[in-house]
């Protein structure tokens, strides 16, 4: 069966079969729409009948205990993992399940990994340069020239993430927090419509957390942002709407206060976390 499916996905072999990259259609509201998605690994259902809708321009926090399926959900959206059943749409035009990782990235979904991954051998400036939304095929990349517009865009993002002074340093010598910001900056260079951010404040100091919160809330409105986070204090400081995942499906959804008073949620997650805090 999977062989048949992979043979049917001829577009992943022949480029000319790929639908041309058309703009994302958000006239009907949501920018991301996941319906009845299920994924199992060796019989374990990491995602179980998940339904999730993200509106255009929204800042959404997703919380849930370990193993709730948060990272798997991001893997599905970015094309790294294919679900067994269900559908995932970006706007109302693009079926993400038929696209490859780079195609999804080019459509405008940017992802920040849990562990900061920047290109350590390259400078901060070069990291941002590579992330810039532009023609990323091999020959155009070979011929690419630096120009004033690109430099301005990079300077603008350098300002947003507060790394102007470090732009010539190799990314490898940045502090943990600075790497996280650089990675968010790289996502911004792609001018994404939807940003997926996985645990942005893990291992950050109090001050770094505040700066990150400012950065993310500043982005919402222009971009849709989905933040997966463990730190409840941080979630409270930025979230307008919170989704609680549990065992691969949505347990509750609403404002932070609504979610916190939900007895189901208290039972599986918030209760223990509040005690710990």
């Amino acid at each position, binding site marked *: 069966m999977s062989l048949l499916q992979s043979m049917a996905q001829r577009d992943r072999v022949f480029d000319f079969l790929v639908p041309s990259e058309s703009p994302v259609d958000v006239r009907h509201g949501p920018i991301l729409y996941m319906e009845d998605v299920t994924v199992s690994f060796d019989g374990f259902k990491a995602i179980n009948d998940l339904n999730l809708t993200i509106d255009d321009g929204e800042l959404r926090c997703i919380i849930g205990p370990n193993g709730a399926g948060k990272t798997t959900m991001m893997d599905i959206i*970015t094309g790294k993992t294919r679900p067994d059943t269900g559908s995932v749409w970006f706007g109302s035009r693009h079926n993400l399940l038929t696209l490859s*990782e*780079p195609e999804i*990235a*080019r459509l405008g979904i*940017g*992802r920040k*990994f849990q562990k900061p*991954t*920047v*290109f*350590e*051998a*390259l400078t901060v400036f*070069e990291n941002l*340069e*590579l*992330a810039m*939304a532009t023609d*990323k*095929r*091999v020959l155009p*990349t*070979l*011929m*690419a*020239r630096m120009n004033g517009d690109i430099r301005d865009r990079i300077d603008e993002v350098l300002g947003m993430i507060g790394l102007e002074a470090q732009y010539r340093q190799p990314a490898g010598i940045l502090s943990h927090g600075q790497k996280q910001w650089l990675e968010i900056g*790289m996502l911004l260079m*792609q001018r994404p419509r939807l940003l997926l951010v996985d645990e942005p404040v893990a291992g950050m100091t109090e001050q770094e957390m505040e700066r990150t919160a400012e950065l993310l809330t500043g982005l919402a409105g222009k971009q849709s942002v989905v933040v997966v986070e463990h730190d409840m204090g941080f979630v409270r400081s930025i979230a307008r709407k919170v989704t609680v995942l549990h065992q691969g499906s949505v347990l509750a959804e609403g404002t932070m206060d609504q979610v916190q008073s939900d007895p189901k949620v208290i039972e599986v997650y918030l209760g223990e976390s509040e005690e710990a805090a």
Partner: protein
Amino acid sequence: MHWLGQPFKERSTLIFLGVLLTALVAVTVLHLVVPQGHPLYVSAYTVNLFGKYLSYALLAVAVDLVWGYLGILSLGHGAFFALGGYAMGMYLMRQIGERGVYGHPVLPDFMVFLNWDSLPWYWYGFDSAWIAFPMVMLAPGLLALVFGFLAFRSRVTGVYLSIITQAMTFALMLAFFRNEMGFGGNNGLTDFRDILGFDLRSDQVRLGLFLATGIALALGFVLCRAIVTSKLGRVCVAARDAEARTRFLGYRVERVQLFVFVVSAMLAGVAGALYVPQVGIINPSEFSPLFSIEIVVWVALGGRATLYGAVIGAILVNYAKTVFTGIMPDAWLFALGGLFVLVTVLLPKGIAGVLAYRVRKRGVTENDGKEATA
């Protein structure tokens, strides 16, 4: 085409080209102008030897391009080198004409010996340089394209890729050993006479081949530097260090890898084609896995991801090999192994790493001096 001009803005490239051109001119002058018997006289034999080193240096640059910048440790680049060599060898065979031992107007000696009555189809056209010389790049390029397409599409990387490149060159060696392949079996192709109408055994032609190899090395070096300093070069480094991240940025990493791998294979083919007329023979031993590993040792000794380090490594190791095998032939492999271990332990960045460190140190002391006076 501004990207091809980019290397000329780098000091290291200008120094490299300066040193290389000086060496080419110096050898030419010492060979032609200085009288024989003078201590500075460079004999035709030595010119020939230098030419061989330069073709190895070009091969090492090709390997450093994929290993240093893309992180693909190819243990099969000898195969591309040998394919380029065979394409040149086939041309040289056809140039022998009726002067072979059997005097057959069309068939090379070994085919007459095997009682073949006609030329196999894949030998057609190799009597013309217009077909044979492009094949020097096309044959290895095509192999790299097919091999790389399959390997990179399946996301085979790291040690697994190294192993299959090794298997590829080993399989080709076994195939070329067979007489039925039509490439001369274990004797290979040899007994060459002319290249482009010039007598291969004359001193002038040897000097010409040496100079041509030097120029090919300079051009190959500039091409690699141009790729490395372009945005594509930075994407290579990005893919080397964090492949998944590069994919999520929207780059098709497998295509970048394929492109650079094919360019590298073609350069290796050119190196092989320049090597064959200078040593006068090509046989399946060039496909041997050991040779491909030796190339990697040159690059590691010289220093990865600098390109000029690969040149230094290739020339030094092969010079040492010439000297050593003259004194005690049996000890050479031990010496090579020992050298490799020493460099890995003491100079992890190779000889180029030591050079870069000295330059940086000098730069720092100069800056200190300026600050002190200011």
